[in-house]
């Protein structure tokens, strides 16, 4: 008997943690009890993207979109929606408490999105290969293996204009061509799933929601370059993605889509998983190869590029997850179709993990050329808590900060580079006026200093020096000469570091110096941090007009810095104050403030 309705429950990490897995169990149990399990199918899908409002439940065919669902709500959804056909209004997305938006298509979060990479995320059950096949899955392999020569496949990739989504934007077709042109023999196809940027989870969501698309693309790449062996290098911190990949590899092998003589074409390809172990530098391709070889993940100079000399000295192509997920679609729909999406230099779409001080954080996919304003204000719903937009950060620790005057820049590799940031792998972090640029630069430098492998001096020493200067400035000990010195170090690191990590590690400092010099100078000259983030520069004061002399603050102060007697004005001794903020939090009259 055919199913009449489908209940799609988001099974991404964020929703699962929010109780999504319990919701799936509840639906299955209650539907069975009511003998509805033959007419309603429950599917745990990949990430639906709208993580802010999770856990999310979508009912098909109506497309009704329920947000922040709890296991206790399941009973009502079954009784009202699935049995009586009435929408449960209280669970619908309702941003202004005014109009009820029922279907996904009506939610602003989804309206400007265009899904190629995430085409199957939230639509199929990622642990069922049949679901993937039903959505044109593994069709591209058939086309490639039986209708195209390896040269034609590479040509198609070149024509599509697809560029690497790992950050640098190197044309994928070129990479394949280099490897293809190497003499025959053992070659390798490697998938980089070592997503290490803090605040980025695009690749994990793709793997969790649609693992087969990555496998299919790897087979296509293998065929194009002449490799019979593929490795997926994935973070050990992503257990759910690892599990889904293992399931997918097993299913594909059982159906003859992986392994010896794929679909009877005579082409062999096998895929093995290799786990990362928490080293950010392993996202750099030469370091990644070292790690697969079981060594310390330290980069080596290029050339020779991996396409010539890679894994165990053999020609190797390394592509990132998002790049790969595009490939089956390009093969199916054609390079011409793909090259019509995007801007003049950058084709296709980009997936972003939109996070930070934005109302709707989540996973989004937009055509290249979309502006930051559209992403942050239309899709992201603007800044939380009525605050002001201060800056957006792209590219993680290797990227830069984008100030408000560039909100209308259409996003592509070139335009972002021009304003001092990079596309990066897709972390997009929004900041408001309560964030301090010195603090942010410090946060990223702290990360890169921690993650520098230590092989080359510019990165190892330069990063540490920059961090020392930033700490000095944040503590109010900075001088104007420090800024001159920092700029020099930034240039040296950028020019002389061995790998991408070191070359770009200074970007957060450079871009904040470029756009927020006044804030640096405020820290240095006025010893002031306008956001109050740099705690050493914060000064607490008591407003004499509001202080009632209740003594609460003096009793709370751990440093004994507040003096005053009952019903008398209290005073803070700034020399003794440790800036813990306990007094401000405890004052019932709002008499204590900081700035």
């Amino acid at each position: 008997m055919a199913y009449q309705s489908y209940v799609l429950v988001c099974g991404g990490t964020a929703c699962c943690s929010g109780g999504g897995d319990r919701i799936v169990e509840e639906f299955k149990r209650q539907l069975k009890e009511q003998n509805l399990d033959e007419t309603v199918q429950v599917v745990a899908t990949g990430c639906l993207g709208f993580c802010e409002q999770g856990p999310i439940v979508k009912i098909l065919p109506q497309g009704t979109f329920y947000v922040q669902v709890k296991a206790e709500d399941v009973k009502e959804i079954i009784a009202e929606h699935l049995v009586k056909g009435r929408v449960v209004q209280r669970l619908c997305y309702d941003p202004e408490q005014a109009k009820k938006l029922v279907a996904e298509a009506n939610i602003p979060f989804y309206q400007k999105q265009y899904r190629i990479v995430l085409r199957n995320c939230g639509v199929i059950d990622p642990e069922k290969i049949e679901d993937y096949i039903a959505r044109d899955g593994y069709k591209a392999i058939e086309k490639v293996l039986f209708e195209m020569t390896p040269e034609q496949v590479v040509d198609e990739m070149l024509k599509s204009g697809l560029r690497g989504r790992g950050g640098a934007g190197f044309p994928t077709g070129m990479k394949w061509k280099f490897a293809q042109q190497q003499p025959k023999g053992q070659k390798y196809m490697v998938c980089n799933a070592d997503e290490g940027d803090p605040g980025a989870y695009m690749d994990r969501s793709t793997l969790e929601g649609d693992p087969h698309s990555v496998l299919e693309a790897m087979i296509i790449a293998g065929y194009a370059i002449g490799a019979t062996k593929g490795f997926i290098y994935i973070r050990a911190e992503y257990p759910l993605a690892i599990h889904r990949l293992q399931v997918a590899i097993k299913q594909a092998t059982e159906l003859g889509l992986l392994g010896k003589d794929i679909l009877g074409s005579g082409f062999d390809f096998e895929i093995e998983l290799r786990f990362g172990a928490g080293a950010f530098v392993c996202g750099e391709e030469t370091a990644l190869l070292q790690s697969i070889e079981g060594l310390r993940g330290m980069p080596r100079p290029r050339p020779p590029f991996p396409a010539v000399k890679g894994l165990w000295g053999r020609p190797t192509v390394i592509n990132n997850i998002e790049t790969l997920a595009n490939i089956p679609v390009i093969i199916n729909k054609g390079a011409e179709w793909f090259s019509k999406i995007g801007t003049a230099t950058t084709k296709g779409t980009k997936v972003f993990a939109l996070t930070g001080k934005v109302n709707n954080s989540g996973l989004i996919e937009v055509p290249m050329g979309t502006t930051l304003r559209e992403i942050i204000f239309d899709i992201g719903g603007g800044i939380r808590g009525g605050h002001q937009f201060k800056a957006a950060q792209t590219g993680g620790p290797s990227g830069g900060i984008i100030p408000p005057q560039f909100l209308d820049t259409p996003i592509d590799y070139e335009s972002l580079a021009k304003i001092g940031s990079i596309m990066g792998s897709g972390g997009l972090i929004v900041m408001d006026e309560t964030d301090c640029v010195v603090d942010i630069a410090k946060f990223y430098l702290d990360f890169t200093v921690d993650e520098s492998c230590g092989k080359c001096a510019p990165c190892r020493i330069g990063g540490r020096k920059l961090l020392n200067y930033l700490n000095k400035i944040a503590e109010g000990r900075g001088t104007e000469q420090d800024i001159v010195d920092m700029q020099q170090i930034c240039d040296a690191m950028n020019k002389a570091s061995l790998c991408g990590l070191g070359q770009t590690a200074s970007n957060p400092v450079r871009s904040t110096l470029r756009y927020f010099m006044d804030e640096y100078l405020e820290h240095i000259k006025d010893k002031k941090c306008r956001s109050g983030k740099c705690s050493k520069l914060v000064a607490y004061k008591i407003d004499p007009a509001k202080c009632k002399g209740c003594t609460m603050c003096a009793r709370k102060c751990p440093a004994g810095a507040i003096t005053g007697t009952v019903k008398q004005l209290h005073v803070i001794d700034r020399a003794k104050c440790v800036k813990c903020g306990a007094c401000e939090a405890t004052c019932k009259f709002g008499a204590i403030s900081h700035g």
Partner: protein
Amino acid sequence: MSEKLETMTPELKAFIEEWKAKPGNLIMVLHQVQQTYGYIPRNIALEISELLSVPLAKIYGVVTFYNFFKLQKAGKYIVQVCLGTACYLRGGDDIIKEFEKQLGVGVNATTPDGLFSVEAVRCLGCCGLAPVAVVNGEVHGKLDKGMVAGIIEKYRKLG
């Protein structure tokens, strides 16, 4: 040194056998060791050195390079506080300080009763729930300082 000696489990032995011939197996084997014991015990590292014919120095070189591998046994409950960018901006720093204060131990240290370890991790990938902490795989999202005591109490009761 009075370090506890661990014994090699049959599962681990079988795993090493399976991977022995594959090139670049060291990291995968170390993952299995850590999954078995929760850390990389010295005597097991020695045994692996012999089984795989890899010098002990090279094994330690790899173990100390990667953040994921640990040389000390962690507490029963591992509190991982996310300090990815999104969590940091939404106050992850305050959350980790609160855990340290309430448990009386610093980052990467274990409480004297062996119950809790505190770790700072970089992005758990559920930025929508920021700030986030994970205790033995269970995610606690949208935290504020006031919720820390309750989380500790919950696991302390479980013992």
